[in-house]
Structure formats: structure tokens, C-alpha cells
């Protein structure tokens, strides 16, 4: 069966193959067995077909029934061994290939967890997902089908050729020429179709992008009555894709009929020449008959071999992508200061020194940019003493979120220092640093599982009682209890069954159960009804009690209660002070304050 031959081709073939082999190496005994059994099955198949010749010759030369029985019995034994070998290798391969793919997937995911946030921010989710779907799929398919098929067909071709030469070397010259023609044609059409395939992939990408944009812009399209024009645009791209696909597939589909026809022509030429040889007594009729069966048999493996090796090659492109990801530098972590947690107190362990965790965070002249050409933060200096609340305000893009991303080292600063309890945060082991910092993000993401599981995500070893206590602190307890299954209610599809406000309450509960000494809060601006809003506010306030807090503020009460407010604009702190001081200043904060807040 012809396979789609992808336009992708691995760039560094030998490296990819080596990596793949190292995965396969863990199952080397199984794979060796597979290879042996494949060869055995091919040999049996060849031998079985070969037996036709002596059996028929035996009959023609008057061997009688006894020789027929004997011939058939030997062939039967050969065939039985062949079937058993085929059964064996296909079963072993089916299992081994899945184990290999299992290992690859596991390494892929494990490594992905170590990648810096930058990787996730700079790659579309769909793109990353395709490592798990498209790429792993092609590798898996290649392993379960193509690996044994290539060995089998390759050996079959070799074996058939050998048999052909043994049976009749003169005729085999003709066959060799014909095989060469087949090979040439297959290569020609593969090359042709490959060119169109890459054009097809490109137009598919264009169509994909167009649809992404249009699906996202549905409202605008409707508001502007633009459906017809868009359909036109879509049609154009769709037509292009159709044309490229048709061309690619046309060339690919000619392979089988061409190979088949060439093999028929060969068949004809061989039988004519063979006939003359029989007439001249060079060979026997039986030998010719069995020879012709071999000739017929040889076309299939050639066809298969070309297709499978093409497929194997394209799946190596998938493997290469996977290995590239696995080879991506993980998040840097040179820190060796660790954190110990004893009931309610925490301490840093810096070599043999033990520093109690107090929650004192200071920024000294911090510069930062996501990419070199576009500096985001300029010369940020600030401090938060233990237990203080620092609020960041400013318009979108001013750099509020960026600052919070630097404290927990989602991103690393370029210049300056961030000091946590007197220790440069780069010296703290990332895992421990992040344990010490609680985060409530603007968008709450929930995982499939119960509500209890989702709250416990904050601290895996929390008891049920602790989970409920945290929910109570967050003001989430009452709504959870009102759900039909309470804490055991299943969350599905990122919490689609909960309102935005309820999801936020869960996020607060999650942070509460983690009970970290320092908190980073990004207040949500999403649509929340006033009652829940009120619950959230109280929950947040309770959560903030007794902790150092950095908050990206959208609420009036939060800003008013802050010990210090940092007003950011274009990546600089332009004003700082408490609410009353800043109002008296009549500056940017004053403008924001009178403009940004809505009714509450």
C-alpha cells in the first residue's frame, strides 16, 4: 500500500539514526530475534516456492506418487516454519515498537518539563503538541511496520535474486535490467512527488494560518458582513492546496502501476527467452515454471522496499524533531542554596550556614529584555521588607507581569541583582526558590481531577482537612460545599463547568494550601459577578496576611492597602509611594486612579 511520503527529510541522518538506535538498543534482544525470524520467514517463503521446481520436474521425469507426497510434505514443513516465524516476529515487533515509543514519549515529556518558560512562550501550543501527535506517530508507525518490512523486503529481494541466479543466470540478466528500470522509475516519481509534497505542506500551512485568523476574528467578520469575501479568500487557498496535492499524489500513484507493468513485460521477455532455452535443451520446463513464479514474486518486494524506505526516511524527520527537543538546553539551574521547611518556619541552607526565611526581597538596578533589540525593563530598584505589600500599577505593556516573572526566575535578568533574604536569587536552587514563592495568576488553570486534587496541587502532601481549611481561607469552601459532590466534584476541560470567579477562588485556595512566605498575585480583570468579587477580595486579603506580597493590582482596595505602590510606564518606575502620597502628587498615578477604576 502506498504511503504518504512526507516532504520532510532529516537533516542529520546519521545522528538521528544513532539516537534512534540507542532507544532500540534497550530492546536489542527482541529486535535481534525479530531480524532472525524475519530472515527465517523469508527463507521459508523462498524455499517453499523453490520446491515447486523439483516437485514438478520429479513428476515430469516420472517420479510417481511417492516423490509427489515427499515433495509436498517437505514444502509443508517449510511453510509451517515460515508461518510460525512470521507470527513470532510480528508479535514481538508489535510489542517492542510500543515500548520504544513509550520510552521516547517519556523522555520527551520529562525533558519538556525542564525547559525554560521562554520555550513555551515562544512556541505555539499546537506546534509543541505535534511532537506528541504527528512526530511520535510517524516514528511509532515506522517502527511497527517499516522496520521489519525493510528487513523483510530487502532480504527477499536479495534471496529472490540469488535464487533466480541459481536457477538460471542467463535469464537473470534480463531480470536485473528490469529491476534497475523499476528502481529508476520509483526514484524519479518519488522525487517528482516530493517536490509537490513540500509545496502541498506549504499551502496547507497557509490555509491553516488563514483559518486560525478567521476563526479568531469571527465577530469582526460578522460585524462587517465579510463572510462572502472570506469564503473567496479561503477558496483561493483551498484551490492551491488541491492543485498541489493532486500533482503530488498523481506522481506517487503512478509508482505501483509502473512497477507492475514493467514486471509483466519482464515476465513476457523471460518466458520467451526461457522458451527458446527449453527448446534448445539448456533448461527444463519445470525449472522455467518455477523461475517464472520467482519473477512474479520479485516485483512486490521491490515496490514495498522503495515505499517503506521512503516512509522510514520521512519518519526519521519526525524522530529528528523529537531528538532536537530532547537536546534543547534545559532551564539553567546553578543554584545550590536550598530550602528546609519545618512546620511553620522555613530556612535557607547556604553551605553550612542556615538563614531563616523572612521574605525580604530587593531589586537593584535590574534591566531586562525578552529579545535583545527590545528592552522591557530599565533600571528597576525596589525593596519589600518582610510582610510588606508592594503593588504594581500601570497600563498594559508597562512591564508589571515581567517584574513578577523575574522574582521566581521564569526569566533571568540581564543586569542588576535580585536579592532574597540577602541571597542573590541566582544562587538559590530554582525548585526551592519557587517553593518559597506562591503565585496566583490572572488566568486560573485547572487540571482534570477532583476539586480536592486541584487545591492539593499547591502542596501534594496536604491532608483533606488542610485542603478544606485552605478553601475556607480562600472563601471557596461555601461554593464547593454547595456543589452536588462537594470537594469530589470532577473538574473537566480546564474547569469549564465553573465560573471565572469560582476558578479564581480555587486558585487562591491552591496558594493558601501551599502556605508560602512570599506571594505573587496577578489580580484578574475578568468578568466576575459582584458577590463572588466580594468573596475573592476577602479571600485575597486573608491570603496576604503576614506575607510579603507583590501584587499586580486592578482593585481599588488592594492599592489602598499596599505599603508601597510602584507606577510603571514603559518599563520604568515613574512614581512610588503609598496611595495618599501618590494622589497628592497629581501625577500619572492620579490619572490612572481617576480613570482606571470602574464601579465597585
Amino acid at each position, binding site marked *: 500500500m502506498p504511503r504518504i511520503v512526507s516532504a520532510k527529510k532529516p537533516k542529520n541522518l546519521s545522528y538521528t539514526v544513532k539516537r534512534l538506535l540507542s532507544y532500540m538498543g534497550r530492546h536489542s534482544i527482541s529486535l535481534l530475534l525479530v531480524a532472525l525470524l524475519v530472515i527465517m520467514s523469508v527463507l521459508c517463503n523462498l524455499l517453499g516456492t523453490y520446491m515447486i521446481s523439483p516437485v514438478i520436474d520429479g513428476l515430469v521425469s516420472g517420479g510417481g506418487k511417492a516423490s509427489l507426497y515427499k515433495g509436498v510434505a517437505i514444502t509443508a514443513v517449510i511453510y509451517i516454519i515460515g508461518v510460525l516465524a512470521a507470527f513470532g516476529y510480528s508479535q514481538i515487533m*508489535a510489542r517492542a515498537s510500543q515500548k520504544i515509543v513509550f520510552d521516547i514519549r517519556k523522555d520527551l515529556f520529562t525533558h519538556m518539563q525542564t525547559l525554560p518558560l521562554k520555550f513555551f512562550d515562544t512556541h505555539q*501550543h499546537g506546534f509543541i503538541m505535534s511532537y506528541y501527535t504527528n512526530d511520535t506517530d510517524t516514528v511509532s508507525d515506522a517502527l511497527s511496520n517499516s522496520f521489519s518490512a525493510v528487513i523483510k523486503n530487502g532480504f527477499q529481494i536479495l534471496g529472490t535474486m540469488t535464487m533466480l541466479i541459481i536457477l538460471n543466470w542467463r535469464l537473470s540478466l534480463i531480470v536485473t535490467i528490469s529491476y534497475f528500470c523499476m528502481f529508476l522509475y520509483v526514484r524519479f516519481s518519488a522525487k517528482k512527488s516530493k517536490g509537490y509534497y513540500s509545496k502541498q505542506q506549504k499551502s496547507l500551512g497557509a490555509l491553516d494560518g488563514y483559518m486560525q485568523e478567521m476563526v479568531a476574528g469571527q465577530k469582526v467578520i460578522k460585524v462587517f458582513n465579510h463572510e462572502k469575501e472570506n469564503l473567496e479568500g479561503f477558496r483561493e487557498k483551498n484551490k492551491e*492546496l488541491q492543485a498541489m496535492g493532486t500533482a503530488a499524489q498523481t506522481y506517487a500513484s503512478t509508482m505501483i502501476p509502473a512497477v507492475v507493468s514493467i514486471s509483466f513485460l519482464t515476465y513476457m521477455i523471460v518466458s520467451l527467452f526461457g522458451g527458446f532455452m527449453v527448446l534448445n535443451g539448456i533448461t527444463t520446463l519445470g525449472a522455467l515454471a518455477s523461475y517464472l513464479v520467482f519473477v512474479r514474486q520479485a516485483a512486490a518486494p521491490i515496490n514495498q522496499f522503495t515505499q517503506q524506505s521512503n516512509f522510514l526516511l520521512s519518519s526519521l524527520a519526525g524522530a529528528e524533531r523529537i531528538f532536537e527537543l530532547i537536546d534543547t538546553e534545559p532551564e539553567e539551574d546553578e543554584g545550590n542554596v536550598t530550602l528546609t521547611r519545618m512546620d511553620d518556619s522555613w530556612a535557607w541552607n547556604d553551605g553550612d550556614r542556615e538563614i531563616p526565611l523572612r521574605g525580604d526581597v530587593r531589586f537593584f538596578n535590574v534591566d531586562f529584555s525578552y529579545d535583545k533589540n527590545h528592552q522591557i525593563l530599565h533600571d528597576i530598584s525596589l525593596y519589600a521588607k518582610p510582610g510588606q505589600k508592594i503593588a504594581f500599577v500601570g497600563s498594559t505593556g508597562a512591564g508589571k507581569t515581567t517584574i513578577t516573572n523575574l522574582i521566581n526566575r521564569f526569566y533571568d535578568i540581564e543586569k542588576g541583582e535580585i536579592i532574597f533574604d540577602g541571597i542573590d536569587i541566582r544562587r538559590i536552587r530554582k525548585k526551592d526558590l519557587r517553593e518559597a514563592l506562591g503565585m496566583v495568576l490572572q488566568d486560573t488553570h485547572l487540571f482534570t481531577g477532583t476539586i480536592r486534587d486541584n487545591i492539593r496541587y499547591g502542596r501534594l502532601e496536604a491532608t483533606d482537612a488542610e485542603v478544606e481549611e485552605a478553601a475556607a481561607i480562600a472563601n471557596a469552601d461555601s461554593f464547593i460545599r454547595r456543589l452536588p459532590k462537594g470537594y469530589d466534584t470532577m473538574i473537566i476541560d480546564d474547569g469549564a463547568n465553573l465560573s471565572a470567579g469560582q476558578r479564581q477562588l480555587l486558585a487562591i485556595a491552591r496558594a493558601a494550601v501551599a502556605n508560602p512566605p512570599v506571594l505573587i498575585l496577578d489580580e484578574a480583570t475578568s468578568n466576575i459577578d459582584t458577590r463572588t468579587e466580594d468573596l475573592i477580595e476577602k479571600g485575597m486579603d486573608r491570603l496576604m496576611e503576614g506575607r510579603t506580597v507583590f501584587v499586580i493590582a486592578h482593585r481599588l482596595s488592594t492599592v489602598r492597602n499596599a505599603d508601597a505602590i510602584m507606577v510603571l510606564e514603559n518599563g520604568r518606575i515613574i512614581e512610588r509611594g503609598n496611595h495618599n502620597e501618590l494622589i497628592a502628587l497629581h501625577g500619572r498615578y492620579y490619572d490612572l486612579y481617576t480613570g482606571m477604576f470602574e464601579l465597585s
Partner: protein
Amino acid sequence: MTNIGKLIKLMGPYKKDLVIACLLVAIETGFELIIPTMMADLIDNGIANADTAYMLGKGMQMAICALLALATGLTYARFAARAAYGWGAAIREKEYENLQAFAFSNIDKYETSSLITRLTSDITVMQNTINNGLRPLVRAPVMLVLGLLFSFSMNGELAITFIILTPILGIVLFTIVRRVAPMYSIMQKTVDDLNSVVEENLRAIRTVKAFVRGEYEEEKFGKVNEKLCQTASRTNSMAVLNMPLFQAVMYTCVLSLMFFGGLMILNAKLQVGELTGFLSYVMQVLNSMMMLSNVFLLLSRSLASAARISSVLDEVPDMKETEAPITKMKSWDIEFRNASFRYSSDASVDTLSHINIKIPQGHTIGILGGTGSGKSSLVQLIDRLYDAEEGEVLIGGINVKDYSLYTLRENVAMVLQKNLLFSGTIRDNLKWGNKDASDEELWEAVDKAGAGEFLRHFPLGLDTDLGQGGVNVSGGQKQRLCIARALLKNPKIIIFDDSTSAVDSATETLIRNNLHKLKGITKIFIAQRISSVIDADTIIVLHDGKVAETGTHSSLMAENGIYKEIYESQMKGGVL
């Protein structure tokens, strides 16, 4: 299967290509089957009788047949590819067409990524079914019937073995396929589970990292990975059973032909050439059966894709036009009559409840209210981005549902809160408002929207390329271009949903002044700042989805309610 049937109906003109492709395969198969009989003749009559002329004649015939087979095969490739890709394009277009007619309540059922895979990879699966499946699907039955016919005509007795073994093979392969098909769908489900763990992880990667839950996630992934490994192993080991079983049947066939054929040769009832020809038939027919079983496996996979595509095609748009929609808007007073709305029928509270508002033609209206008070939802009922659940919304005394959607939206322009520009030049984007607009008209609108100044600074002006999603302009610039785009529509009603939030206050005042000059047009401003709505003819204050207060600035100030409270919080210090 019904899903596939439905999709095949969409093939339209390409059905012809499909039929021709099928016919060509059938003809090609016929040639392939004739060739072995000629071969048998060549050996038995030609070589055995040392008749050279006969041998050459038969050889010629064989060559012609092989060339004809080649010609049909190559033509088949063309028609089959045309059918497959034509079909795919037709399905895709139909899906897209349907998608465009979706109301938001329809779209909300799917995720964007899932909609897009339904238009891309799922269709690729269907195309591949034709690319890889059509040939064996036609060949197998043709082979079987012709093969049986030929073999009977060659030697009835030998053909009996064949007749006994073929159905056995059929039953064996069918049994495997029937057992594997449901296993595939279980496997697909496990694959989905694994993907959703990865997706969840990606979506929540900040949470994962903030809580240092990498290892926990790995454990979770490990479990689904393990499960997938087991399921896939089980499914595949069942699926690959067809290979040795098929071999067993084929070998049995060869053996019995050898045995019975041998006996017949001994009794001089059969010639050597006949046996050889017969054997090659057997191989061909059995091979095509094997292919067929592969096709069934392929089909059972494509069924899942067909179902996913059909669900998009079968989705009935929730928003429909009446049978004879009104295509002319004569007057444009707006009235909300006891209108209520909720985003989904299982939401616990109404987003808007029992709204009663009258907006006379040509008036300027300001709408204020907190987040979630229903401002955006309210205006989206006017041009039917959503439909009111209860009560009605009327324009010029006619229910908006009675207008044709085109007329309604042609007359109502809306600058959305979450607005978008599309890839292409600024000119392309502005022309969404009026595709026939001249450059002067474009610039006029641009100036009114306060975008003229920055746009004149762009070296390429209107021809500046925006890149996907309008990434090459700042938020405030984008908002102004969106206003210009809406103005170009020359609407009767224009709605601004908080559409100057990223524009500085001086420019905002300029834009507002320009807009005030537009006479006869009803203007609705949703705003956060009091200053944006202070001179409106009517100000509506929404709270919790209800109209809390209405009036002019002075009447609302006198009321001592929410409006006054906002005013005081925003205007404290006596600065306006």
C-alpha cells in the same frame, strides 16, 4: 459508515473522476489477469510443441496487454488523485461555509484548534483513504470474480480448492478486522487522554513551574503513557495477526494445488503450464484479499475522522433568518423590550435581565457599568452577534430577527472591545468597511478616527503591511484603525465598545469631537471614564445585568445614585 456516505455526496463533479478511476482499476486488473493465461498458452502450446511463431505471437499479445495496463494505471493515478483532492477541497469548503454560518453558541462547542484539525488533518485522513484504499478496494472483488472465472475455465477441479479456501481466508480476515476496529477506537481514546494531559500541562505551564510540580506531572504523564503503550501493544498485536494467518491460508492453497495438481499431471489431466498459471492466479487473488483487509483497517480509522467532520457539517446554526427577511432599514430607533440574555442555557444567572431601553434615531448614548455588568452583551444583541433569550430587540419598530443579517449588519457598525486587524495591508483592512472606497474616502475616515497623524508617518502609508493579527501597530493605533474601518461602512448606527481605552486623552477628545459631527447617526459609546460619556443625550448605567439608572449627566447627578458615586471617585479634586 453513514458519515462516510454523507461525505461522499459532497464529491460533486469529482464523483465522475472517482467512477473513472474505479473503472480504470477494474480494466487494469483485467489485463493483469489475462496475462497469466497467455503465459500458460505460451508454455503449454508454444514451448511444448516447439511452435516458435505461436510463442512470438503470444509474446506480442502479452507485451500489448502490459503496455495497456501501464496506460490505464497511469491514467488511473491522475483521476484518483483528482477525485481524492477534489473531494477533500469540497469537504473543506463546505465545512468552512458552515462554520461561517455558526452562531457563537455553536462555535463555543469546539475549541479553535479542534475546529482547525477538523478542516485539515481529518480531511487528510479521508483523502488518504482514497489514495491508498481505492485501488485495493476495487481490485480485490474484480480479482476475485475474474480469478475464479479464469481458474474455472482453466481447470474446474483445481478451482474447487480455491473456492473452499477463499471464504475461509475472508472469514479469518474479517474476524480480525471486526475485533481490531473497536480496539482502534479504544486506542484513539487513550491517545486523546495522553494528548489532553500534555495540553493541560502546556496551558498551565506557569502554574506547574510556579508550584514546582514537574515531577508530579511526569508521574501523571507516565500513567497515561503506560496505558497507551499497553493498549497500543494489544491492538497492534491483534492487527498484525492477519499477516501470518494470511500466509498460512496462502501456503495451504499452494500446497493443495501442488498436491492435487501434481496428481492430475500424473494422470495426464493437467499440463505443467496450466499449473503454473493457476498458481499465479491464486497468489494474485489472495494478495488482493490481503490488501482488502488492510483497507478495512484503514477505513476503521477514517471512520473516526468522518464522524468528526460530520459533526461540524451537521451542526445546525443556532441563528437563522426568517423566511422572508426584511432587506431595507427605513428608520433606526432602537428599542429593548424586556430583553433577557444568557450565554449558555445552563448558566445559573442571566447576563442581562429584563432590559427596557429606547434609543431614538440620531441620539448619542453612553453606557457605563462595572465589569460583568453586561455592557458588551447588551450592544451585541443589537446586531445579533447573540440573540435575546426572552423579550425582543427592535430597530425601527421591527424585531432585529426579522431583518436579513446582511441588512442588519450593513446598517449597524460596531467597534468591538476585543478588536482585530487581519494580515494584509492597512488598506486591505480598511476596505473591510467599504470595498469600493477611494483613497480620499479612506483618508477621510482615517482622519476622523484620529489615525491620520501616525499613518502619514508610516513610509508606506496605507500600504503598510500589518502582519498576522495586526502585530505591527501599537494598541492605540490599532483601535483608531478599527474605528476608521467602522466609519467607512457609513452606518446608521455605530457602536463603540470601549474602543479608545488605549488612546491618550487628547486624541480621544479629538475623535469624540469628530464623531459628534456625524449627524443623523445613532452613536452608542460604552466607556469606563465619565468624561467619555458626559455629553451624551442619554446615559445608561448597568449593574448586574440590569438597567440601574438612565438619564442625562445632570439628571443622574441629581439622583444621588451609582452614577454620582463614580463621578465623585473619578472627578475628585475638581479636575474634569
